[in-house]
């Protein structure tokens, strides 16, 4: 190996250490006995998990997060697929504006989305409800779902759908028997990714949630207090959940594209 290659690899390693340091830290200290985490480490303990998960509000938060993530992911995926299919199949006037509308939400700062949603949902009588959070998270997740479905549709031969029509299938039947099965991995992928987006989002949820806290909002409220290893314990569960979702989302896409 040349010196340049070695240097490049070391640099990459350092970058990945920086990116993953907080995740590893959280996991390590969630099992560490010290109240104020530092090195050298104390001894192994499950205490923080026990205290954190003995709190009923933590369980409520997980239940809320689960409900919100599943609902928002289902809605985002449906919306994202419909939009991606529209972009794939049809050309029409103002299509650029249509696509901009579809892809813009992630560029709006979350604090601003939070404020705007708070005001809007308040008018609709939905502030402080889980429905409100689901609505907000669907707006934020749909662009990602759209992108994933669009990538998958790109790999589909447009003649495939046309062939189904020529064989006498209605557009609906062609959708159900050709397009949707082809896009299934992308749909699962989009569902997992948008569930992760929702599961991790906390600023809009914090603005909108009122008393119905999701997990990260509960963490945020504990954080207002002080350094508390319980956050590492809850955080580790959160990390494992969202990492699993994102890994599955990616594997679903890679598995089929490799063919």
């Amino acid at each position: 190996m040349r010196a340049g290659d070695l240097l490049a690899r070391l640099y990459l390693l350092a970058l990945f250490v920086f990116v993953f340091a907080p995740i590893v830290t959280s996991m390590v200290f969630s099992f560490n006995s010290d109240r104020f985490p530092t090195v050298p480490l104390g001894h192994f303990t499950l205490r923080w998990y026990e205290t954190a998960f003995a709190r009923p509000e933590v369980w409520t938060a997980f239940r809320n997060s689960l409900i919100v993530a599943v609902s928002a992911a289902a809605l985002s995926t449906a919306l994202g697929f419909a939009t991606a299919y529209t972009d794939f199949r049809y050309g029409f006037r103002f299509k650029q504006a249509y696509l901009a509308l579809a892809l813009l939400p992630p560029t709006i700062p979350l604090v601003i989305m939070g404020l705007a949603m708070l005001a809007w949902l308040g008018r609709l009588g939905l502030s402080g409800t889980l429905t409100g959070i689901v609505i907000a998270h669907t707006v934020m997740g749909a662009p990602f779902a759209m992108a994933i479905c669009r990538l998958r549709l790109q790999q589909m031969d447009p003649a495939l759908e046309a062939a189904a029509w020529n064989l006498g299938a209605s557009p609906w039947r062609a959708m159900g028997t050709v397009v949707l099965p082809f896009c299934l991995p992308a749909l699962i992928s989009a569902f997992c990714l948008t569930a992760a987006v929702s599961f991790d989002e906390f600023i809009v949820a914090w603005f909108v949630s009122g008393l119905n806290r999701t997990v990260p909002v509960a963490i945020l409220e504990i954080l207002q207090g002080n350094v508390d290893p319980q956050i590492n314990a809850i955080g580790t569960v959160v990390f494992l959940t969202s990492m699993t979702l994102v890994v599955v989302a990616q594997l679903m896409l890679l598995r089929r594209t490799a063919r």
Partner: protein
Amino acid sequence: MSKRFDPYPHVWRLPLLIWQGLFFVGPLLLMVALSFWVVRNYRMEPAFVLDNWERMLGREVFWNAYGVTFRRAAVAAALASLIAFPASFALAFRVSDAARRWAIFFLIVPFFTSYLVRVYAWQVLLAESGPINAVLGFGGLGPFTMLNSAFGAMVGYLTLVLPLVVILQTFSLAAVDRTLIEAAWNLGASPRATLFRVIIPAAKVGLILGFVFAFILSFGDFVSPFYLGGSKPPTLSILIIDTTKSGQQWPRAAVVAVMMILTLFAVASAAVGAAYGRRR
């Protein structure tokens, strides 16, 4: 062909228009309108007054926050671009395709993984008596105060944006036509000239996109400046939260929000111009 109405295309096209209209455009427009409303007796009333604008824009606090936020976002975007570049370059040119795919895979994971908990972990790592200072202490250094400072906030921004910047840069660098590079070599260009006059111009779009996304994310971020930067001086996002959460001053928070959106819009347009303009 009959001209009967066919619902099929509309079933796919309309949901987005309805949903984003109701829950994305609607809220944002209401927020813009809100900035002209008045607050009487802790209640907001629709109106059209410039009072909120005059008050917010007439305050030094606002402009200080604006300056801090803009500067920090620019520095974070520049730092992230510079730090990411050698890594992206290595991923694009020095490793196998498989290794590159896995690297991207493992950069996408943290981007979608609880930013809040990662920032909390930095709070632990960077603390006065935390692990990093403890390790430095063995070498007789420190302890350094890293939390509640611009440095702390910068670590947070980089945590947020580095993976994305590396991904965008890597894609654009990997897409650079290899024959262009070989041609430069064959024509006797030095490595430096090849990098600055062939590779970077060819990968311009991705490099600029990386910078812009880093800027957008850092500019709007509230977590890093709050938990790692100590919220002094406050950034615009902290200003919005303070103004919203302390007593119904939503219209004034809306003024800050509109100013932020206008700024991001201006920066994004300038960047798109730089990325796609001046090209034959």
